């Protein structure tokens, strides 16, 4: 089976140990994480991890069952790129001198749809949100001028289909153990 990019969304209860447990699932299988983002979700007190990996469908299916096996995980999903709307954000810190002295750089900024976040006498910060290749394209253009700092976030994504987490939560019936 071919490897493909999968975006894994994990809806969880809030628990500090859980991050460890989830990353251990990948570590144990020697799967590199392309990115890992944790945030709140649309539901009160439900958290969401967004994980990007390049694996086969069989692998991602097995990983999902292992993730869902964790006590505090409510539900995990996996999606192909075309089933999600996804973005990454990058910040470029660049010497202010360049902004005034290199005419070309202003064109680069304009063409790339990047935003200037802040300007100080020493540096300015550029924010670019988009697909990975768009961020990389901007990086390639700016890098020759010299970057003081560069950082890129993990992928965040929403799915085209509904996730129905509230409904799923309702199906967790409470069972008595004998």
């Amino acid at each position, binding site marked *: 089976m071919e490897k493909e990019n999968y975006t894994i969304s994990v809806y*969880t*209860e809030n628990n500090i*140990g859980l991050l*460890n*447990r989830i990353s*251990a699932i990948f570590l*144990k299988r020697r799967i590199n994480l392309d990115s890992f983002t944790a945030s709140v979700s649309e*539901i*009160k*007190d*439900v958290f969401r991890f967004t994980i990007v990996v390049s694996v086969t469908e069989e692998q991602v*299916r*097995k990983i999902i*069952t*292992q993730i*869902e*096996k964790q*006590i*505090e*995980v*409510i539900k995990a999903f996996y999606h192909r790129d075309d089933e999600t709307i996804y973005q990454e954000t990058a910040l470029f810190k660049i010497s202010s001198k360049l902004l005034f002295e290199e005419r070309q750089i202003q064109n680069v900024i304009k063409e790339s749809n990047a935003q200037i976040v802040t300007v100080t006498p020493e540096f300015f910060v550029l924010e670019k949100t988009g697909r990975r290749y768009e961020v990389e394209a901007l990086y390639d253009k700016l890098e020759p001028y010299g970057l003081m700092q560069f950082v890129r976030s993990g992928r965040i994504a929403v799915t085209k289909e509904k996730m129905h987490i*509230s409904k799923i*939560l309702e199906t*967790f*019936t*409470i*069972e*008595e*153990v004998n």
Partner: protein
Amino acid sequence: METATQTVTKETTMKTERMTGAEAVIRCLLAEGVDLIYGYPGGAIMPVYDELFKYEDQLTHILTRHEQGATHAAQGYARTSGKVGVAMATSGPGATNLVTGIADAQIDSTPMVCITGQVASHLLGSDAFQETDIVGISTPVTKWNHQVTKAADIPEVFAKAFYIARSGRPGPVLIDITKDAQFEEFDFSYEPCKGIRSYKATPPTEPKSLEDAADLINAAKKPLIVFGQGVILGEAEEEFTALIEKAGIPAAWTILGLSALPTSHPLNVGMVGMHGNYAPNKLTNECDLLIAVGMRFDDRVTGNLDTYAKQAKVIHFEIDPAEVDKNVMSDVAVMGNVKHTLAKILPLINKNDHQAWLQQFNDLMEIEYDKVIKNELYPEKEGLSMGEVLRGINEETKGDAVIVSDVGQHQMIACRYAAFSKSKSNVTSGGLGTMGFALPAAIGAKMGAPERDVIAIIGDGGYQMTIQELGTIFQNNTAVKIVVLNNEFLGMVRQWQQLFFEKRYASTEMTNPDFITIARGYHIPAKRVTKREELKEAIKEMMTTEGAYFLEVCVEKENNVFPMIPTGASVSDVRLS
């Protein structure tokens, strides 16, 4: 509106009592019906030990001689009693010493709660004396774990821990409690956990899956059942027997399924896997339907997956969704506790017998008997065989004893040849293969089933890994019978060296101490047998002696266990020699 309650508790007015976290720990254990725990004290858990002293009449603490012993004893206790085993240790080295037993319990689905002391919360992360991140260390080998830094959290965490440990697919849970939380006072009240919002202990059974499975079973000409520990953990022995008898299906067991079906049952066709029986291994690749019941297709069972039962349709009765299609793709997965799913499918199954198919098993069993079993049980050469020791034990106990085995050749021989009449009688380390398991596990097994005879079968290697637990046996007067099969080798490794490393016996020969003197040093009556004529009498003496007994049997040094499926080979390539 969404609610945030993670643990759902009964809405009752709870009476509260002011007490320390340490006392609360004991009260939680009592509330969960625990009356026996295993452990080893130390600085970071001393407040709890101090409370134990107060509750001595309600909660027995067994001091093992090493924390590993405490976990294995808790496992043995859980396996024979069906209850949750509890082990306790201090922080740092005490906690890390628990890890082997926790890992063993995780892979063998044994319900266990481990309690560790931790340095005071203001010291966390400072590399304080005896600080270790046991929550981090134990994460990959626990079903759940949690660190408590506030006394007030203790009741809810304990309630959750016991619920998680014993529900669904059971497993080990670890609770780490900082020392300040043990000292802190709070208003205690206890409510057992009835469920956790994000945790579905038992997945729902799709009615369609039962129908589909029944159709496959009714249509099969050559069905084969492979059953695992799920039958025992689900207490589904009756339902299971009813099903195989109605449908006339031969049933083979994994090492952890052993004893769920009496050895003498006519449909019991033996063990599958690396040292399993010839017939079920061979015929796995001939059956038209493979029905897996509460088992997980471990690689020791399947051999090479590319050639495993490829011709067969597969039905998987399973409680853990992560096991379905993990190693072997199933045509029908029946989710749920097998106690319920087997009972539900029974009325949908046609009465049948598969005489000709069963005959194939019997024919192959005869071949195995002639080539392997006869020589193992009734050897004609001079040296004692491990198999004849098992035969002697069977004759003496009539299959009613609990057999606890360690890891190695003797384990395979014990599992292959021990006769069982009752369930929960076979206690062994299956998934992890932990040497040193048997002696402490036997202590727990005996305490979990005090009315039964418990016999530990151990190799000379594994025995020396936890030999110090003889002290626990002596101090507590635990009536376990210890049989060491001494071949002066790490036998199983030596067997592999002989077969696959051209007899280069690197570091597998052992010069052993005088085991009899050691046993006597612990005031345990002991005997050594070197000749066949002495064996029967010695076993009799062991079983009729009150209390603990140590029997060393000097067996042939270079015997091998057959049949064998070499690693990576197909189950049908099982070798008889």
